[in-house]
């Protein structure tokens, strides 16, 4: 193992540049450890975002050697083959400063895809039993563990090319709600995801499922949305 890592970090806003730092190499070191070392020991003005450090909160995603990754769970040994790291802000989102991006467009698209639960009951009703082995619940289980890190959104070619495209995370969220037996927003949600920028814009490149740190498969969820919206359209339940 090398004693030092050569680390290039994006500094500044949209028109910034990479600056190189030397960081001591350590056992079981994560990419977030590297960024934190620079901020604490070399340049305290470095801006980046993290919270839990254990892969739960989804706030520390960055572009690491060209690919979006959750930095707290990405070991340096996995990505820095020659002792070199290039760490930048996530793609497809406006850069605020250094490694911090503005995730507002990402979450606005959740709203556009109707990613909000529409309850069918009040707090005074009985809790609806959901069988874990029901087909609908199995579909939800396969897609529910999204931590909103934005890795899929940053990895997506279609998002890069089509600024209206909702992106994998928002559509996966819509898919889980469509399969939620307690949700009442189905038809409106199908209408929303069938609109321009919705599921039919996906090219199935599958970068989202390749890089999702939670090993989810948004491409499969989007394919499900394509099938459901097509069936609903042919039945006249939604308009084109």
């Amino acid at each position, binding site marked *: 193992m090398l004693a030092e890592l050569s680390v290039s970090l994006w500094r500044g806003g949209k028109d910034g540049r990479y600056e190189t730092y030397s960081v001591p190499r350590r056992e079981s070191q994560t990419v977030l450890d590297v960024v934190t070392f620079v901020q604490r020991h070399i340049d305290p003005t470095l801006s980046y975002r993290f919270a839990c450090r254990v892969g739960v909160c989804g706030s520390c995603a960055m572009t690491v050697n060209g690919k979006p990754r959750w930095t707290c769970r990405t070991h340096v040994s996995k990505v820095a083959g020659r002792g070199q790291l290039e760490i930048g802000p996530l793609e497809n989102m406006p850069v605020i400063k250094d490694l911090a991006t503005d995730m507002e467009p990402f979450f606005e698209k959740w709203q556009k895809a109707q990613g909000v639960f529409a309850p069918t009951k009040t707090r005074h009703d009985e809790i609806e039993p959901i069988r874990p082995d029901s087909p609908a619940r199995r579909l939800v289980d396969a897609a529910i563990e999204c931590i909103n890190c934005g890795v899929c959104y940053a990895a997506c070619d*279609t998002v890069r090319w*089509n600024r209206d495209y909702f992106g994998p995370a928002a559509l996966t969220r819509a898919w889980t709600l469509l399969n939620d037996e307690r949700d009442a927003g189905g038809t409106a949600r199908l209408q929303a995801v069938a609109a321009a920028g919705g599921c*039919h814009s996906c090219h199935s490149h599958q970068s989202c499922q390749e890089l999702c740190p939670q090993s989810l498969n948004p491409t499969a969820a989007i394919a499900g949305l394509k099938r459901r919206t097509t069936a609903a359209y042919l039945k006249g339940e939604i308009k084109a």
Partner: protein
Amino acid sequence: MTMRLYLWQRATAALMVPLVLIHIAVIFYATRNGMTAADILSRTRGSVVWASYYGLFVAAASIHAAIGVRNVLTEWSPLTDRRAGLFGVVFGMLLATLGARAVFAVVLS
């Protein structure tokens, strides 16, 4: 891409799968048997079947390609969606015209 364009593109693609396979089989058949242009034309002239088959093929290909070109332009060029759509329509009409001309040439000439 909207729902309607998605459906048209997928439907025309599905339609073209057997049409392409038959088309390739016909090419192999014609070349392996050493057929001349005159041989081929003698079979296609006045044939409602060949006119329908290639007419359908041209229509499906024109619609499919027009939507595809529109999508490429909306994603990879600075054109607005409306202008990309217009370009797609013009491109599709060009393909349909060229295709129809070829069909007429082998069926009616």
